[in-house]
């Protein structure tokens, strides 16, 4: 069947999915060429996980079609499952079993022979730096180790297309960097990867192409550089302790910025894109605010974050969006982990 070996690894056309009143996907299109990495960027509740679940045959779409390695995820689901690997938001491993047992059982369920499953498990434990912990129960593993084991499990069947749904959510910064290294080496081996993430820097590091999803729609697509250029380079951000002076602060900083300033009335945080002017903009900003007589705290220059991309693309912050969606949904999702990670991203000062 030569036709299955031409064309993109993933092709999605007009995909929609609703859960009652919640329109998780409202018609998205994606094309992922073989051997490339697509980063799907968006806040919680944007529809990322729904898209992954449809592409991995876990969920039926309402409308549209999706092909993985040329196979329809609805009509040829069994064939699709033979060519994919999935690692979700939480570690889908059996904690009462050892790392080795986990992988061997997955191997057996991929219909490898006993000996082959054992060899495959050992290879993967080696590759993922888990060989020393191979015969310990997985519940004794750290969060990062559990995620590595989970990723290893998704690779047992040597998938051509790998889906990673927020692979680093909830991980500490060090484990996160370790995960990035592993993902890079997988991609170097020619695996096609679809990666969802809430972090611009993660998509930036790993993806060839990025799509931004909001409200179940693709609102932007391009390389990380292209997306960042929409923000207008670096961001100058500060807090105005006296909420009554926010309007004055916005007026003062608008003189310095290269994009419309954004002010959050509740937190008193004001941000503005300053392009590539770096420390000049910082100095100008301080002067301008000083001239207006506005007291500020924590004035700093930082790289654009997902929130900034969202602001530039949609005019609202990702977080506001997320809260709105979450209120509309019955299932709460990892709020603590997400907020912690976002705070970290927010402090990312350059």
């Amino acid at each position, binding site marked *: 069947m030569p036709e*299955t*070996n031409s064309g993109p690894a993933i092709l999605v056309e007009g995909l929609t999915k609703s859960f009652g009143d919640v329109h998780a996907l409202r018609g998205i299109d994606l094309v992922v060429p073989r051997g490339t990495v697509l980063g799907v960027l968006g806040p919680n509740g944007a529809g990322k996980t729904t898209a992954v679940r449809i592409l991995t*045959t876990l969920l039926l779409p309402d409308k549209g079609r999706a092909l993985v390695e040329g196979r329809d995820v609805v009509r040829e689901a069994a064939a699709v499952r*033979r060519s994919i690997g999935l690692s979700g938001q939480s570690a889908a491993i059996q904690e009462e079993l050892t790392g080795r047992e986990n992988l061997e059982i997955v191997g057996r*369920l991929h219909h490898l022979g006993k000996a082959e499953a054992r060899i495959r498990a050992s290879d993967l434990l080696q590759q993922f730096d888990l060989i020393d912990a191979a015969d310990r129960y997985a519940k004794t593993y750290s969060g990062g180790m559990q995620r590595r084991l989970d990723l290893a499990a998704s690779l047992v069947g040597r998938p051509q297309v790998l889906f990673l749904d927020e692979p680093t959510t909830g991980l500490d910064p060090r484990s996160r960097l370790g995960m990035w290294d592993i993902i890079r080496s997988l991609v170097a081996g020619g695996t096609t990867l679809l990666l969802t993430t809430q972090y611009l820097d993660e998509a930036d590091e790993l993806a060839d192409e990025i799509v931004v999803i909001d409200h179940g729609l693709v609102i932007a697509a391009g390389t990380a550089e292209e997306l960042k250029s929409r923000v207008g380079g670096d961001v100058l951000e500060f807090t105005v302790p006296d909420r009554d002076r926010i309007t004055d602060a916005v007026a003062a900083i608008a003189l310095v910025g290269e994009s419309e300033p954004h002010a959050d009335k509740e937190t008193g945080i004001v941000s503005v894109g300053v392009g590539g002017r770096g420390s000049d903009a910082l100095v100008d900003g301080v002067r301008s605010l000083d001239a207006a007589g506005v007291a500020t705290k924590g004035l700093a220059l930082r790289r654009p974050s997902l929130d900034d991309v969202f602001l530039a693309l949609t005019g609202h912050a990702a977080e506001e969006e997320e809260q709105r969606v979450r209120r509309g949904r019955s299932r709460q999702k990892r709020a603590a982990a997400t907020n912690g990670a976002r705070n970290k991203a927010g402090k990312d000062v350059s």
Partner: protein
Amino acid sequence: MTATVVTTTAVPDNPSPLVRGRWAVSDTLAITRRNLLVWFRVPAYIVFTVIQPVIFVLMFRYVFGGAISVPGIKGGYVNFLMPGIIAQTAAFATFGTAIALAQELQKGVIDRLRSMPMARSAVLTGRIVADTLRMLVTVLIVVGVGYAVGFRFENGVFPAILMVLMAIFLGVSICVIAAFTGLAIGDEESVQAFGLIWLFPLTFLSSAFVPIVSMPGWLQAFANNQPVTYVVDTMRVLALGGPVTTSLWKSLVWLIGILAVFGPLAVRAYKRAS
């Protein structure tokens, strides 16, 4: 495609029904093995499935036994009690089924398995096979404890084996309901709190522990017409002898009915699980 496939793990595009049948069996066995390994390693599960039924036997035998009269039962209350407690043991063993499935669903284990090229039925069948084996072990332990406290099979070996099988059949039927509940509720704590709370009235408001004639009239109406009573009555006849009444076919109709209704429901809940 043949020219490009070099890995040994590659499988034919459309496996024949025979190959798929073989996979369904081997996948079920792999899941069964996994579930049994987990069971052996969690002390809480062992307590739940072994110690708790033993406590029930001792409590009913020695605390309530003296106060409950069972006229016409050869060997007295302990012989009356044991078939009932064995049935209850088999039914309660299915708590583990519901909780484990809800847990796997929550943790994403079921998503992982469903995205793999394994037989989709195997997660359910492997769970039920493992839990049935677990149930059998528990039932045999309870029979042993029963013997230690004075229980005797009065009707020969073959009916005794049938009695155990009857208990297992009840357990498997309830296991399927539990599988459905666990997957449909999908939240471990909710399942623990009220997923199987109905098992208490079902087993206690039956002929399992006391003669139904000792209950108030309105309760008798329920107790006389529910499956656990039919099953326990049948088991009692098998264990102690006596005429096989209508309870045998009524039990079978109930249990087959439960499987016919909840089997497809459990499969549906599994397919839709998210």
